[in-house]
């Protein structure tokens, strides 16, 4: 086994994981940053994204491309709407109290999970990728004739995986533009910095919160729609993304979107690489160890502001 081509493969797998993780963790980070709500049900919004994607793609079973594109648009919107509704029904009534919202979102986690089990069922169900060409990984070797390209046997990625990476970059850039360049972003940042003063300048904080909760859930759902053609939809699939998102948000610094992106790429990549060369369990052990180290030596996270 040659090391070089395997490393490229591992990096690609890691980047796919990092892409989905970035979107999911960005959602969690936004919700925590602006609303100071620790959303334990975030992983279930991820799972719902995948389940809805399966539903939409199945309803439009004719062509995988149309089904997938429809799922990419409809599933996040549905999940976002559901999150907005749960914000108005539950979180707002708790006055966004930090402790009570944790308990409430734990409750939401079980309700969403069990309702999905009762309706969607216990089986993992696939969504067909819109396109899926096999792309062999090229490598170079040095022969008597000089440098030569060749394709090591059995090592390949797919065009769909490259699309996931590109889509995540595009969505990440869109979120960055939304936060820094738009009026909505300005309102979100002002609300995050000082809720009461924002209100004193006409910002409808409750509506902002509902929007942020919806946006956070929609981002998780978007990540899930992207991964279902690779991973399948299952009612228990929300656990891992929730754990990893928390790890990412803590390492990146609570409420820092830049830190979240950097940490997601770091954790996603290392997860992919360690999983390929060693084992997925070791990857998780190391990630959790990293969180412990960050909490001990840099409690505000890599990019978090030091508490004044």
């Amino acid at each position: 086994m040659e090391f070089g081509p395997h490393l490229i493969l591992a990096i690609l797998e890691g980047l796919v994981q990092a892409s989905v993780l970035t979107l999911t963790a960005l959602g969690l980070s936004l919700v925590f940053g602006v609303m100071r709500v620790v959303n334990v049900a975030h992983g279930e919004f991820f799972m719902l994204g995948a389940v809805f994607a399966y539903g939409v793609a199945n309803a439009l079973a004719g062509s995988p491309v149309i089904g997938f594109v429809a799922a990419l648009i409809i599933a996040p919107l549905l999940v976002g709407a559901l999150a907005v509704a749960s914000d108005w029904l539950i979180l707002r009534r708790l006055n966004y109290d930090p402790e009570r919202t944790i308990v409430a979102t734990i409750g939401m986690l079980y309700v969403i999970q069990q309702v999905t089990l009762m309706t969607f069922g216990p089986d993992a169900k696939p969504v067909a990728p819109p396109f899926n060409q096999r792309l062999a990984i090229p490598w170079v070797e040095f022969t008597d004739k000089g440098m030569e390209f060749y394709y090591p046997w059995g090592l390949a990625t797919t065009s769909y995986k490259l699309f996931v990476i590109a889509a995540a970059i595009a969505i990440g850039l869109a979120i960055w533009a939304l936060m820094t360049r738009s009026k909505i972003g300005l309102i979100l940042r002002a609300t995050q910095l000082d809720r009461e003063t924002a209100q004193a300048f006409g910002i409808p904080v409750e509506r902002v919160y509902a929007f942020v909760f919806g946006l956070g859930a929609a981002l998780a759902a978007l990540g899930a729609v992207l991964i279902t053609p690779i991973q399948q939809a299952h009612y228990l699939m929300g656990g891992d993304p929730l754990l990893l998102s928390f790890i990412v948000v803590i390492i990146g610094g609570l409420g820092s979107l830049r830190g979240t992106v950097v940490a997601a790429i770091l954790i996603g990549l290392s997860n992919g690489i360690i999983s390929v060369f060693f084992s997925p369990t070791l990857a998780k052990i190391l990630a959790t160890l990293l969180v412990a180290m960050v909490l001990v030596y840099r409690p505000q996270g890599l990019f978090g502001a030091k508490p004044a």
Partner: protein
Amino acid sequence: MLEVRNINAGYGKVQVLRDLSLEAKAGEILCLLGRNGAGKTTLLKAIMGQVKLGSGAILLDGTDISALPAHQIPKHGVGYIPQGRRLFSELSVAENLQIGLMARGSGPQVLEDVLTMFPRLRERLDQRAETLSGGEQQMLATARALCLRPKLLLLDEPTEGLQPSMIALIRDAVVALKAQGVAIVLVEQRVEAVLQIADRVVIIENGRAVLEATPAELEADKELIHRYVGV
């Protein structure tokens, strides 16, 4: 302009304001004096809808604003300069002003006027608010409130911790606004500053308005001030 009628308010079970009434008129500076914890800041928060009333009413030009959600109140033309300035610290000067402009959809001319009033801010538009000096931060807090073209301006200890030249600058701004017909409610600890610019003074003690007087009356009877705000 502003009429506060028999309001009772507080935080949870702790009542702070008791049957408090007062009135502020257009083109007039009303100063609130009182010891720490008397309820001055709570009164301003109650006007802004941030502290809910137990009873009573707050009328702005005859309409009751006390039942409105807090974010609606600035849209009626109430500008608030909170204690400790409360700037959006990580946002730039321009973004802080933008928030003020958005509150009532003010146009670029308003921004121009405000920047003419505080030229120092124009030089620092791209700077983060938290990097400004104390005086500049107070200018920004004032400018941000002016961006919503207020007809009623609430100032909570605007000169706290500022050097004398800055205090004079803020005072001039307040006097200029008065001349434009804005109703001004000013909370201030320094008695001599109050006596210089106030048209009327209301003394608040234990959440009640215990005395209303003109600066001349207070000047004539130093004992009054000593009794209510002396240490």
